[in-house]
């Protein structure tokens, strides 16, 4: 019996589920860094506590949401939607030829590197900074927002679509070429059908993300609901802020739903009857597709620049 006991104790001593030394060291390093950075930024417990008091007052002033200036709200929302639609259209239309030019398996290197440089440049700067530059160039208003978000769309779709084209099977390209097709026909009948599904995925994802971003570019004067939101904050109209935020969240959720329906129709060939019945299989596939770009971005090496609004 005594032997059994010591064996048990030895097992308990071993602690198979304990953290390894390396993990402990890493954890300590993170904590030390967090304390160091907090003091650098001048965080203090008093400030945090004072903030919590402000937070309670702030929340109480947000409710009930104000429904007085619904016309202002609607104007801003309509402009945001217009910015999102036009920026997506422009961005998608421009990124199509750029991606084709940037695909290394179809084009010579004198065509690929300028196309790739354009895409990298579009991706490098945050949409808000691009919006600032466009506000200076074309003045305050929705046009600056459309242009800024178009640039962001080219950066995102251009990169992912180029990669999609580079991954196609060249057998179909060869087959179409062997039939004597022109270059345009090769693109149209051998390349695009292979990447259409991916392209629809990226495009709906980008529409969704432009919808989110169109609510923000207004903060720097590029049109949309962001400007209304920013001025409501500056005038301490927190009840109106609450209305605007609730509307934005509702619209973004609707946008996600819409993107899902579009993917179901274009990718799963859902018919009207299925849509009304709510076919579960198609929906599941569409949901899996919806997150494809974000997940792909997350798990791909060196893809950090693609996202920002997943």
């Amino acid at each position, binding site marked *: 019996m005594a032997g059994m006991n010591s064996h048990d104790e030895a097992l308990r001593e071993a602690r198979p*589920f304990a953290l390894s030394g390396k993990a402990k060291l890493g954890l300590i390093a*993170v904590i030390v*860094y967090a304390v160091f*950075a907090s003091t*650098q*930024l001048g*965080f203090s417990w008093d*400030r945090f506590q004072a*903030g*919590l008091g*402000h937070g309670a007052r702030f929340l109480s002033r947000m409710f009930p949401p104000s429904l007085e200036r619904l016309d202002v709200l609607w104007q801003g929302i*309509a*402009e945001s*939607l217009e*910015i999102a*639609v*036009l920026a997506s259209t422009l961005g998608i239309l421009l990124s199509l030829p750029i991606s084709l030019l940037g695909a290394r398996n179809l084009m010579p290197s004198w065509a690929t590197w300028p196309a790739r440089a354009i895409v990298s440049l579009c991706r*490098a*700067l*945050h949409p*808000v*900074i691009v919006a600032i530059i466009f506000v*200076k160039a*074309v*003045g305050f*208003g*929705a*046009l600056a927002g*459309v242009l800024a978000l178009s640039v962001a769309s080219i950066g995102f779709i251009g990169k992912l679509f180029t990669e999609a084209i580079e991954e196609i099977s060249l057998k179909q390209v060869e087959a179409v070429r062997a039939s004597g097709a022109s270059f345009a026909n090769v693109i149209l009948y051998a390349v695009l059908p292979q990447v259409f599904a991916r392209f629809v995925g990226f495009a709906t994802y980008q529409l969704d993300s432009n919808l989110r971003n169109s*609510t*923000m570019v207004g*903060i*720097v004067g590029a049109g949309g609901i*962001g400007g209304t*939101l*920013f001025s409501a*904050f500056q005038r301490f109209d927190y009840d109106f802020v609450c209305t605007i935020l609730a509307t*934005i*969240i509702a619209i*973004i*959720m609707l946008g996600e739903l819409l993107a899902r329906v579009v993917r179901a*129709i*274009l990718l799963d*060939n*859902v*018919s*009207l*009857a*299925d849509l009304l019945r709510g076919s579960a299989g198609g929906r599941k596939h569409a949901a899996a597709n919806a*997150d494809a770009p*974000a*997940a792909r971005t997350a*798990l791909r090496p*060196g893809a*950090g*620049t693609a*996202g*920002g*609004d*997943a």
Partner: protein
Amino acid sequence: MNETTHIPRPQASSTAGALPDTWIRYTRGQRLLRFVLYLLFVLAIVQSIRTIDVIPEFLYDAPTQMADLVNRMWPVAWASFPGTIQQALIETLHMATLGTILAVIMAVPVGLAAAGNLTPYRLVNVLARFILVSSRSINSLVWALLFIAIFGPGPLAGTIAIAFRSIGFIGKLLGEAIEDAHPGPVEALTATGARTSAIIGYGYWPQIRPAFWSIVLLRWDINVRESAVLGLVGAGGIGMALNSAMDLFQWDKVALILVLIFTIVILAEILITRARRKLL
């Protein structure tokens, strides 16, 4: 009626009884729905173009304005880098990193609760997903505005804004990674009578570890970009320096700040590519 029987892939259905003589890729219902969809797209675009406010004079003026901008930005004010701008740059990096750490601490429980296979309570899943969607729907600039109203302007508001915006991103991708995990090791551990923490630590964690690190690294990279603009609304970091330089029309200083932001963004990307190679 052909469209009442749903045929997902017409090519595969050649064995399914009476077929029309000519091959038609889509059924009538599918074609109709596609047509309606395209029509709606075109209508949305046309409507947007018609109603959007564009002042043509501003548009004709754009090339001159751009030339003027470039003129004023050149030469870049390199001399003003030491001092406030350098400090603001370091503040930006601290905000991004601290925000990411905070976000991971808050997002992990929500992500675990959102994963259907780990948390078999439908209500908890729905609640967790709602938290994740709200976090992602509100832009980090808007989060910053909210926290400025609470904590006042400064890096504290910016850091917490970054953390709250990142919860949705990290939690969502983490929850999906957990749902994709293979159930075998988990079942084996459950059979030994392991505690929940051990099941998570030894059943799920080894499987989601690569995904976890790439999610965190990616989010840190995004946060570096975002923390650079949060200052535009007063939430600390280099954006504040950018904002004041723009307000004072010191475009040469603006150029310097833009170059700096560009540089740290590129450096952050190089860094995460390196770290990814080492960690994964």
